[in-house]
């Protein structure tokens, strides 16, 4: 093949990739604006603009700046983060079914929260009122980190980390967390049950700028760090031996990538509960559009994850306003069939 031809092919492909990213960014922008406009109280763009620049009437301004904007930012952060972690774990484990839930991170976070909700009164009586709203997010974050530490510890044998062991340990941890959650749900009272619903199906509703700021900052830093793993993830597709032959420090990369995913997912679950399917579906759709090269796949998955999660949130907020469905219902209900449709189309899987 002539060199010119290769360069020409590159030349043709670049606009396609650019076009995909432009379309994804534009869609994300539209959905993000939709998140501000749509809701039980319909606002127009000028009200939103006024609210943002600080000239708006008090009520619309409060809706925009105190309710919808933090929710939109959180949705973007979590959607992007779940999707990028899903893409990283799928690449790392060479397993198309991998997502942050698979290796037990979300399960650990949920279990910690359920323990605090149901048994919290026994030991949280003395906690100052000002700190109480943050107890659950902190518990979720600690739960995610604790479970990740356990998983990474168990998955190592003789200093090597086996992907097979990692998945099996994840399955075991999920099972234990599920049993614990089931038992605590059984002994909980009515008020606790409502809280448990939130934490078992996820929601972007309980947000304020403080929590959103911390959580989204952690997620975005993690996302940027994970983008740097693109080349390593490409090499992982050759298998771990060949990746080592190509210069990767395999165990170090597996360990650090999993740990960063745990921090990112823990930060998300701590404020919005576990949200399924985004981490699984977004990388698959992105891969079908843009291919498997991770320097394109990771950012495309992230943008797509943001779009999907905000779409899901728009649906749960607007189906039966002012009531709000758990967002996990929407992501699973939309994501599940859509995923089946994609699988049927894609013969290779």
């Amino acid at each position: 093949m002539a060199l010119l031809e290769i360069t020409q092919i590159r030349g043709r492909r670049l606009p396609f990739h650019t076009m995909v990213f432009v379309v994804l960014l534009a869609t994300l922008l539209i959905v993000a604006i939709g998140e501000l406009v749509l809701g039980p109280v319909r606002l127009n763009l000028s009200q939103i603009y006024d609210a943002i620049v600080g000239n708006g009437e008090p009520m619309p301004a409060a809706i925009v700046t105190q309710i919808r904007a933090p929710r939109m930012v959180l949705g973007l952060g979590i959607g992007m983060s779940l999707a990028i972690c899903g893409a990283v774990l799928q690449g790392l484990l060479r397993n198309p079914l991998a997502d942050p839930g698979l290796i037990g991170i979300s399960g650990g976070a949920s279990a910690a929260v359920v323990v605090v909700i149901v048994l919290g009164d026994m030991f949280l009586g003395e906690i100052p009122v000002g700190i109480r709203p943050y107890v659950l997010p902190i518990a979720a974050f600690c739960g995610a980190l604790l479970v990740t530490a356990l998983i990474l510890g168990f998955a190592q044998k003789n200093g090597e980390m086996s992907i097979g062991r990692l998945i099996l340990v994840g399955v075991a941890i999920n099972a234990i967390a599920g049993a614990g959650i089931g038992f605590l749900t059984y002994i909980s009272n009515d008020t606790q049950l409502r809280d448990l619903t939130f934490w078992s199906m996820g929601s972007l509703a309980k947000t304020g700028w403080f929590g959103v700021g911390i959580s989204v900052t952690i997620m975005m830093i993690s996302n940027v760090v994970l983008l740097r793993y693109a080349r390593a993830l490409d090499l992982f597709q050759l298998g771990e031996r060949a990746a080592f032959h190509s210069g990767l420090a395999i165990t170090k990369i597996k360990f650090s990538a999993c740990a960063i995913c745990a921090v990112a997912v823990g930060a998300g679950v701590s404020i919005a509960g576990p949200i399924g399917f985004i981490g699984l579906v977004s990388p698959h759709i992105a891969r079908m559009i843009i291919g498997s090269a991770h320097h394109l796949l990771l950012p495309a998955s992230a943008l797509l994850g943001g779009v999907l999660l905000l779409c899901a949130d728009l649906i749960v907020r607007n189906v039966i306003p002012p009531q709000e469905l758990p967002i996990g219902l929407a992501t699973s209900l939309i994501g599940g069939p859509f995923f089946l449709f994609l699988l049927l189309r894609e013969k290779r899987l």
Partner: protein
Amino acid sequence: MITGRNLSLAFGNTQVLRGANIDVPLGRLVAICGPNGAGKSTVLSVLAGEQKHYQGDVYFGDEALADLTSRDLSRRRAVLEQSPSLSANFCVDELVRLSIPMELPPRDTDVMVCNILDQLGLSEFAKRRVDNLSGGQRHRAHLARVLAQVYANQTLFGAGYLFLDEPTASLDILHQIAVMKIARAAAQNGVGVLVVLHDLNLAAAFADDVVMVNRGETVAAGPVGQVFASKLLSQIYETPINVDKHSSGRLVIYPELQDLAG
């Protein structure tokens, strides 16, 4: 030159290597031959840096293997596994670029990929997905990837070694010869090539030196003409083996099958 001295390795209670020795000079094609389970691939995996708990000394030039990181190693040698795999739907062009060090400028990378695809007859498949290729083509695509790595190493760092672990195992005779010609060409271009081979005739036809391994030990090493002798091969393989000279001057190795005669 790569030198391996007194290499020993045990997997649990099984002693796989018992003081094997090997030299791989730059610009020569060295074949490791021996019976099944002799430790051929294990010698290669020790030199490749895969084994942590071996005993003995391995040097890449004057650098000890133990002091080299995985990144350092990837800049000195490229390895083609026996059964290379690929989980992602990369096209051939993307696969070949994968293992090329980032230090090589993009323009040089393009030229190198282009040349290697040409050399391996893969140009027309450059934009085809690897999983849509036939077994032989897929194997060549992976060979192209390690060749790109080794030539990039040669360009950037002045030397390159290529390790091929039974590269002809799943190929028909045409493709076996094609692969060995590529390995030969690499050696002629100054690359030190180490090939694990079962087929003694391929080794006789293409290798400069042969290292015969049996029960984890090096039992003979040197130029093909010296090592491939009927008596030694018959002892190692525990069956009568003849070594004749073909009219072309090449050695032809074949087992005696008297019990099948008539």
